[in-house]
């Protein structure tokens, strides 16, 4: 007797909405268990992590502030992930956006440059992130280098660039030798939304990005192209969609949005460049994108939910002396649960008795949406030359949910 997966003939709409919520709850239960193992009360932790921030108006504002970069980056990643391209270097694109935009802030520092400075910085942030995001895309298109590895390696490089600049040429000479730049001028700082609060116009960028993306993905040919490229690459080729152009486009968009996130965080929150400008937003945004099921409005909700773990993590560190790494661990756990729940939306677990094989499935039912979505991704890279294994791949997807299930 053992458990087996069987594809569902129909994927219910309700299950799609329930799955991420269920995943969140499961992750919470497991995290509660871990906290209990650490010798703390899970209930007290829950109060600090969830109820505390949600009942405090100051913390609610902070929630939006933290959700802003997460939503911006995750929205960008949606373009890549929908096309089945794995940009995991958003953290680096975030940093490079802040570097290029920050250059303008430092350049105009002390001059009486007008109010054009911060909008120009935002544009430069987008450009910086997009250019940096285009590197792995170009490497993939031109040389067939796996974008997973190159984009990740570039994160370390970007962080070192920022480290060099803030400790070297861009260090504030009057900064007591602290590795940080001068504080940005008011013209290089993002306007606040409601007077005194911490909420800045970056939150509006995120909202605009969400609405624009909902339109692009749902209503334009480009959005359709992404889906076809991601879910049925061969169909996309036959349809005349240029996979290389799609690759470049989605990396430029996601890099640009990550760069905008980095620039607004620096210009709206931190107010200067320093060696570390992100608590890992670029990586957490991957969790956000999947928790939001690669849907713009889902991502809006997911970014707020995950931002809660950041704020909760900070107060838990102060109030319960629980280390911040717990937040990171929870975010990884959450991503695992979300992906697992995602799979359970398309498959059901069934108990199979010994010797009782699964009846063969009719061809049509095999190709569920998830069977396509979970299509693996070889590190060999497939951008430059069509590989001879392509027919193999097709034979597996048409005959083979059962392939791995004996």
């Amino acid at each position: 007797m053992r458990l087996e997966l069987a594809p569902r003939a129909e994927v219910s709409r309700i299950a799609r909405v329930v799955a991420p919520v269920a995943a969140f709850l499961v992750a919470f239960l497991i995290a509660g268990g871990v906290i209990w193992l650490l010798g703390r009360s899970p209930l007290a932790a829950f109060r600090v992590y969830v109820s505390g921030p949600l009942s405090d108006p100051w913390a609610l504002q902070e929630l939006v502030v933290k959700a802003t970069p997460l939503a911006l980056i995750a929205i960008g990643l949606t373009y890549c992930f929908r096309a089945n391209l794995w940009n995991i270097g958003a953290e680096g694109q975030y940093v490079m956006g802040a570097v290029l935009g920050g250059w303008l802030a430092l350049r105009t520092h002390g001059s009486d440059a007008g109010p054009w400075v911060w909008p120009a910085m935002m544009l430069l942030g987008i450009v910086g992130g997009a250019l940096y995001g285009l590197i792995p895309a170009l490497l993939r298109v031109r040389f067939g280098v796996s974008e997973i590895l190159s984009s990740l390696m570039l994160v370390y490089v970007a962080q070192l660039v920022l480290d060099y600049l803030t400790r070297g040429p861009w260090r504030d000479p009057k900064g007591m030798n602290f590795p940080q730049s001068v504080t940005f001028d008011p013209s290089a700082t993002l306007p606040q939304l409601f007077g005194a609060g911490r909420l800045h116009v970056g939150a509006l960028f995120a909202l605009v990005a969400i609405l624009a993306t909902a339109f692009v993905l749902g209503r334009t040919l480009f959005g359709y192209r992404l889906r076809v490229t991601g879910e049925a690459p061969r169909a996309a080729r036959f349809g005349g969609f240029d996979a290389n152009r799609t690759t470049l486009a989605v990396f430029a968009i996601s890099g640009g949005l990550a760069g905008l996130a980095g620039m607004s965080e620096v210009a709206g929150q931190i107010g200067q460049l320093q060696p570390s400008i992100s608590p890992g937003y670029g990586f957490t945004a991957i969790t956000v994108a999947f928790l939001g099921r690669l849907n713009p409005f889902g991502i809006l909700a997911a970014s707020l939910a995950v931002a809660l773990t950041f704020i909760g993590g900070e107060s838990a560190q102060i109030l319960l002396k629980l280390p911040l790494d717990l937040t990171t661990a929870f975010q990884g756990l959450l991503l695992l649960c979300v992906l697992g729940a995602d799979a359970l939306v398309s498959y059901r677990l069934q108990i199979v008795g010994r010797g009782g094989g699964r009846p063969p499935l009719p061809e049509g039912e095999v190709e569920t949406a998830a069977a396509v979505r979970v299509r693996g991704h070889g590190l060999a890279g497939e951008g430059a030359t069509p590989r001879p294994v392509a027919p193999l791949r097709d034979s597996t997807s048409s005959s083979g949910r059962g392939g791995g299930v004996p």
Partner: protein
Amino acid sequence: MTPLEAILLTIVTASTPLLIAAIGELVTERAGVLNLGVEGMMAMGAACGFAAAIGFDSTVAGIATGILAGAGMAAIFAFAVLGLAANQVGSGLALTILGLGLSGLIGAPFVGARRDPIPHVHIPGLADLPGIGRLLFGQDAFVYVGLALAAAVALFLSRSRAGLTLRAVGENHVSAHALGLPVLRTRCLAILFGGACAGLAGVYLSLVYTRFWSPGMTAGRGWIALALVVFAAWRPAYALAGAYLFGAATVLQLHAQAGQIGLPSQLLSAVPYLATILTLVLLSIGRGRAVGAPGSLGAPFVPDR
């Protein structure tokens, strides 16, 4: 000991964790599974192994715990991608994030603690040979374990029935399944082996390489190990060469930083990462010319899930 000898010795130590982790991932990928969680499994191996070594005051217990921690993380991954057919790339990333976070939790009480160096192998006579003696015959045991592992995996893959099964499963799981080969069981074992190797590589970092634990001490080595598998065209022998090449790059940039050669230290720190990208590019240019040559036959077919 001459300076050159000292540099060569450190290159061997820096290469060993890369080699061990890459060999493990190589086996996993030859079985058709891409586990991007190497970094997380390594971090867990480093933290758990160090904690156990301090707790039990025993290096052996530390090593065993590190291996188990890596395999335990891999078991979570196996459950997700084999049991639930979850997305491999996403699950691997999640495993890395989870591993980095958990290792921070586990290692936090041990920040600042130090372990004594583990004894080196010393073969009387041979190890005292001038020049190459220490280099070849006086390393710590892990170095030889890493080399033996590479040799064993090479033999296993190319010469054993089980190795053939593993390759068949990785090459085309539909055909393998049709032949009655246990696809899931093979993959599960391959994933666990990869995790155990990553754990061993991690414990090497904390118990031998630095002899202390610090958060984020894996510093992207897990990712470099992943790149090494691509570099090696999924062949153990090339993985060996690649690991030593990357180890050399890491050590030489450290020496360059210490030597004050006038370049910013951050640029030198970026060398291993840039070298990884550059290698992947050069590799694809090289293989691009040799389309159809047997050289590309080693690339595994990474199946749907």
